[in-house]
């Protein structure tokens, strides 16, 4: 059994950030990844500027193969059923359109950690002063012994399931899928990420250009039909926006996503010597960008391990105190009071709204409300309001609600 300081499960951006902090502090770190690297990753790839800065500061300038065409994205355009469109540029300029297959591989290599790919996590046992991690490589069982384990293995995290077997059943799950189309004619600007606040299209509907094709993406509550949802969106784009696309290529893809935790401050940070981070912990910015908070929360999980060892404190306690700043930043983006009176996002929605005429402004607000009503069934309303109210009182969000 290989004995190391820390095992990180997953070779994502969160893992790379955690590994960077651990390796810098001289801790022997192994990253285990189910697939062979570089591996494909389903993602829109539009990183926020904050995430870009983190990558630059910690891993260096991005090599050209880590970005798709167009290499950057200027901002987000919101579209509403009333046919009002609001383009908003990111603060601080354009932001990269990451090719996750190569960007993740580059980051994990730059972190300096030892990577064991084709090694899938199978389970763990927390023994108090160390954790035994079971995994399998090419069908052969392998075991690791680590002082701490960091689960950076995405939304349906096997590590979180190993620690909290019931967790996955407690939160609503969404399916997010994207199809790739060759373009006949597309009036949607290739410089922007397009998002539809349209209850008829789905919970999460977007489109943007990539490598000469157009992505049409849909998100909906698990159980619905991808092909049908996609067809509705494609038809809508054609009718309302004049987007003419070839039938989708057969490389469509999709994955499960957890929108809820950051919205209602219901993160899961692990137990004992096992930490969950990134989207496994529930971090997701508004408009579904999870990479920048994955990078930051991943780094914090690494910092917490280093700090806990040096200060001789339980790692969960340290992690939870340190992660509070990232929780604030992420949950603020969903907090209606923050959205109304502050600038929690990396683009200026209030300013864009004020640029519209008062008629359009009213339409936008009405359409947004109708869109929000779509989420009524999850009963998040009261939790969001109580979170928004506690924010100014305690200067953050309650740690009691975290798992």
């Amino acid at each position, binding site marked *: 059994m290989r004995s190391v300081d820390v095992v990180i499960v997953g070779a994502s951006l969160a893992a790379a950030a955690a590994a960077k902090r651990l390796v810098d502090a001289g801790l022997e770190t192994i990253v285990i990844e189910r697939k062979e690297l570089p591996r494909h990753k389903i993602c829109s790839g539009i990183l926020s500027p904050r995430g870009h800065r983190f990558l630059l500061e910690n891993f260096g300038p991005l090599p050209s193969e880590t970005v798709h065409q167009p290499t950057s994205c200027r901002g987000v355009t919101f579209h509403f059923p009333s046919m009002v469109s609001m383009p908003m540029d990111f603060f601080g300029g354009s932001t990269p359109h990451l090719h996750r297959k190569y960007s993740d591989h580059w980051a994990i290599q730059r972190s300096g950690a030892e990577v064991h790919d084709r090694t899938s996590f199978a389970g763990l046992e927390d023994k108090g002063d160390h954790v035994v991690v079971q995994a399998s490589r090419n069908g052969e069982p392998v075991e690791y012994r680590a002082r701490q384990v960091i689960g950076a293995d995405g939304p349906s995290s096997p590590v979180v399931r190993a620690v909290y077997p019931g967790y996955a059943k407690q939160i609503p799950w969404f399916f997010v899928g994207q199809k790739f189309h060759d373009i006949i004619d597309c009036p949607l600007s290739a410089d922007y990420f397009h998002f539809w606040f349209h209850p008829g299209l789905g919970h999460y509907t977007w489109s943007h250009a990539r490598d000469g094709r157009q992505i049409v993406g849909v998100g909906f509550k698990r159980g619905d039909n991808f092909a049908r949802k996609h067809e509705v969106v494609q038809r809508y784009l054609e009718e309302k926006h004049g987007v003419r696309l070839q039938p989708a290529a057969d490389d469509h893809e999709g994955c499960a996503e957890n929108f809820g935790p950051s919205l209602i401050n219901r993160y899961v940070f692990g137990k004992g010597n096992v930490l969950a981070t990134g989207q496994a912990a529930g971090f997701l910015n508004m408009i579904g960008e999870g990479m920048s908070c994955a990078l930051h929360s991943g780094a914090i999980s690494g910092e917490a391990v280093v700090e806990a*060892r*040096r*200060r*001789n*404190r339980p790692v969960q306690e340290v992690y939870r105190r340190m992660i509070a700043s990232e929780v604030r930043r992420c949950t603020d983006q969903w907090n209606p009071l923050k959205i109304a009176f502050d600038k929690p996002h990396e683009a200026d929605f209030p300013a864009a709204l004020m640029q519209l005429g008062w008629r359009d402004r009213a339409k936008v607000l009405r359409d947004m409300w109708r869109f929000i009503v779509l989420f009524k069934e999850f009963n998040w309303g009261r939790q969001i309001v109580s979170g928004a109210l506690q924010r100014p009182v305690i200067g953050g969000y309650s740690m009691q609600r975290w798992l």
Partner: protein
Amino acid sequence: MPAFLARMPAAARDYSACSGCSLCLLVCPMWRSRHDPGFSPEGLAKALQCGATAAALAPPLDACSLCGACDAVCPERIDLSGMIMDLRRRLANSPLPDVPRPALPDDLHSRLQQGAPATAPVAPRSAPVLLPGPALRADAALLAQVQALLGIAVFDDDGDDIALAIEVGVVIPPLRLQSFLDSLRGHSIVAADGLLLRQLRRWLAGSQRMGLGAALSTRAAVRSNLGAGDLYVIEPRAFHADYERMVGFYDRLQRETGCSFNLDLQRIAIPAVAPGMAQNPGFAAGDEVQAKWILQGRSPARIVVESLADRAVFGRVCDLPVVHVAELGVDPQMMKEFRHAFG
């Protein structure tokens, strides 16, 4: 001041609180002689933060003289000498074959097991008692002077086995410690051994305790014989064991008499001798760097010491008259000799 405005006095903290400010290096005789951060309280704390074992830290642990200066300057209020004593205990109790250990006096364990012979109490409870320690005991004339000055009885069981056990990290049998503390309870205590004094402060909270030097220098006879030409060498362990109080005490002594002290700019006592543990049980000669540093740039007419070990080292490094503070109070000949010298 209302109580809610006053912060609770923070409890002593451990190595994990060390933030690496290096203030302890500035006052550490170990660091001063080596200029190697590994030989400093900070170096030890940082090494522990990196997971070091006591055995890996044996050289600095043995080199430390437990002068206690670091405790007084640590802004994080870490009990650094407590940390070092604790590590020495760990080292002593789990000896590794490849870590050479200094030899201890053969009879220490048996003395600790037997305890002091039971005798009739020397003084009624509440009367002050003197714990002179072996060096002062060996100097009968000086001991008599001390007693005469302080008007105090010598306590039969002065706990020198306990003091040595604290220093070298030997575990004190609870029975021995209990009987020692029971016999002391209720007395006000004057102790020559600063390390013992430090521990008594914890063990007998609320009791009256004082270091020998400070006790002697409260006497009018002593004070009247101190003057601007005197370099008064404070015994560091007792001084740092009760730093906040002692720094004020000696400051007043300085204002009153004009003497100077072996204090640095931070008002930390510079030890004149800083022998590590290896030499300590036998009180062999340490090096003289510290004493020379105390004297550098100063030209006192006389050196007054609180500790007998200091008298020996100053006798070696300079040809100034060196007197023990007890000798100031009672020797009429000396008084006559120096009175004119100091005006």
